[in-house]
Each structure stands twice: as C-alpha cells, then as structure tokens.
C-alpha cells in the first residue's frame, strides 16, 4: 500500500511552508523489535480490518461526491483510515512474519474480521454520513480507551488515530445536523439511512473470548455501548432525528462470516496485487 502520490504529491500549491511533521508511521512499526502477543495480533487484525474496509468504501466516493470539497473531505477520511489499517496490520503481521500487504491482499474473505457495518454499501450521501456517524463515535470511544492499553504499540497507534477520528466524528456530526435540519427530503433520507444501518450496530458491542485474553491490552466492546448510545442519541436529537427501533441483525464478522458485500470489495481491492504479485506502484 504505497501512497507516494499522497506523500510526495504537489507541494507547491500552498501559500505557506510545507512540513511533513513527526508521527508514528506504519513503516516504523514494521521494523520495530517488539512483537505483539498472539492475542494482541488477532485484536489488531480486527481493528485494522474495520478501518481498511471502511477506507475502501469511502474511497469509492472519490470523483463521485456531491461537491469537489466533499470529495476531498471523504478522501482525506479514507486515507486517515487507511493509515490506521496499515499501522494495525503491520503490527499484527509481526506476530506471524507477514507484512501489511500480505494481510490486506492475500487473505481470503473468511479470514477477514471486519464488522458488517463497515461493509455496507455507500448508498446515497445520507447513508454514508449515517455510517460515518456510527463508526466515528465508536472509534472515538474505542481509541480513547486504547490509548491506555498496556500494549505500547496499540496505545501509540490509538493516540495518533484518536485525533484523526475526532475530526471524522465532527465531519459526520456536522453533516447529520445539516441533513436532519435541512429540507424535508434530506431529513427523510437521513431517517431512512439510520433505519437501514441500525441492525448492524449491535455487532459493534459484542464481546469475544479474545477480550478476556487481552485483559488491559484491549478494550471490551460491551464497555463502549452505554456511552455510544448516549452520544449518538444526543446528536440525533439535536438534528431533529430519532434513534431507530429496528431490531439487531445476526452478524458474525468477527468470526469471518461476512455480508454478501465483502467479497466484491475484496475482489476489487485485491485483484491487482494478486494478478501481479510483488508489483509496486
């Protein structure tokens, strides 16, 4: 996953000085001496897969967003998420002698551990915003908790991701307010979006035996539920929308049982790397 265009692209357009800044990079994680435990590695795959699949979904908006500015905003969020995925997968790979690319491009569908929510199609703009609202509030709470992880690398990745996710959340909240309080049509679409996505929310908070193994290295998903419900309800109320009462769907993404959408996502995401193994671009 080389993003040379993003890192070294046109730096001349800006009126002010450009500096790369210092932060934990996936490249550094890939060569660090500390190895994750098996449990931490499996956990990191879950976190990485959620971000990777959501990043891919958001990247589908590029060149198709309602406005050029929104195109860039969604593209930025997709790249942030891809950065998180790269960090988590690079770290997980250290436990098994695999690279981020091995994990992203050469795993089969049933080996992925992503949530059903992040696999859901973009739909109209309101569906994408509703999905962003749900995931960004979740990740905001998750990374805030993981910043205190007993695993130093997970804590460091989460601390960096936390700031970026706070912005994703702000973006989703701003749009939820505008669509909810906008026109009759925008409010109708937002209500519809919340209703069709709500069945996938329950899976975000399911604990697994893995979380017992992790102890204080991880965050128990069920521990995030009350805060998540409180925070999303507050946003929806401010936006003049209601918390849907739709029943939960049975989702087993964490066991490798995915929605029908993941296969198509992976086909598109993996085809180049599989057709030309070892290719760089």
């Amino acid at each position: 996953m080389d993003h040379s265009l993003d890192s070294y692209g046109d730096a001349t357009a800006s009126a002010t000085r450009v500096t790369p800044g210092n932060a934990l990079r996936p490249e550094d994680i890939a060569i660090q001496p500390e190895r994750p435990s098996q449990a931490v590695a499996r956990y990191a795959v879950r976190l990485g897969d959620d971000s990777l699949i959501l990043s891919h979904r958001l990247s589908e908006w590029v060149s198709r967003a309602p406005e050029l500015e929104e195109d860039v905003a969604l593209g930025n969020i997709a790249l942030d998420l891809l950065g998180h995925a790269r960090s988590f997968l690079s770290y997980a790979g250290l436990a098994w002698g695999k690279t981020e690319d091995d994990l992203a491009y050469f795993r089969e569908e049933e080996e992925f551990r992503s949530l059903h929510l992040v696999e859901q199609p973009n739909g109209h703009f309101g569906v994408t915003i509703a999905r962003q609202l749900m995931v960004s509030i979740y990740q905001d709470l998750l990374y805030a908790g993981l910043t205190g992880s007993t695993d130093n690398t997970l804590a460091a990745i989460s601390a960096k991701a936390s700031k970026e996710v706070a912005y994703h959340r702000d973006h989703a909240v701003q749009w939820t307010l505008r669509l909810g309080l906008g026109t009759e049509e925008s409010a109708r679409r937002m209500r519809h979006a919340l209703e069709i996505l709500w069945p996938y929310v329950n899976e975000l908070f399911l604990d697994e035996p893995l979380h017992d193994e992790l102890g204080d290295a991880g965050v128990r998903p069920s521990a995030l539920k009350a805060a998540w419900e409180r925070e999303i309800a507050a946003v929806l109320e401010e936006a003049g929308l209601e918390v849907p009462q739709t029943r939960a769907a049975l989702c087993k993404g964490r066991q490798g049982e995915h929605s029908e959408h993941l296969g198509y996502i992976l086909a598109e995401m993996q085809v180049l790397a599989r057709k030309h193994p070892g290719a760089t671009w």
Partner: protein
Amino acid sequence: MAQPVATSPTEEGQRHDGAAWPLWEVFVRSSRGLSHVHAGSLHAPDAEMALRNARDLYTRRNEGVSLWVVASEDIIASDPDAKGEFFESPQGKDYRHATYYKKSEGVKHL
C-alpha cells in the same frame, strides 16, 4: 468604484450543482507565527463547513496552525479597471521614501 468580488448567484432551493454553494476565501497562518496569508478559495454551504473544507483542502501537509474563512462576497475589492488612478499616483514621488532624504550634517545616528 469598489465592488464585491464576483460570486455565483445563489438562489435558495433552486440548484443542486456546485454553484449552489457560496464561495469562501481561505487564509492560513503558518506555524512560523506570520500573519494569515491568502491561500485560495472554496465552496461550502455555510461558514462552519467552509472552515472544515479549508482544513481539508489547505492544511493537509502541515501548512498551518490557524485558519480564517471569509465569504467572498464580503470582501470589497478594488476595481481592476481603475488601477491607474488607484495605484499609479505614487510613481515619481520619491520623497515618500526615507531613502530620498540625505542625512543632515552632524547627525550621527539615524
């Protein structure tokens, strides 16, 4: 003579293309503590979103620590056709520069 910077007309509820969003001018202050510098412009539905779009478009590579956005229509610009009477008058008026003057005799420090 002064006139607002031209923007697309925004008739509410009528358009759904890019022109429906008003134009905003973006000013970025770099981390070196200089004043805000005009960086470009963008479209946004309102001021808060303009600030966020500015963040996404103009500070992606660590360019700034502060952002201003101003509705383009609120900027009163000089008329390009009136450049002559506006800006040519100082030409030849060297006495408006300190370098025009010779140091007076006996002045040690100036």
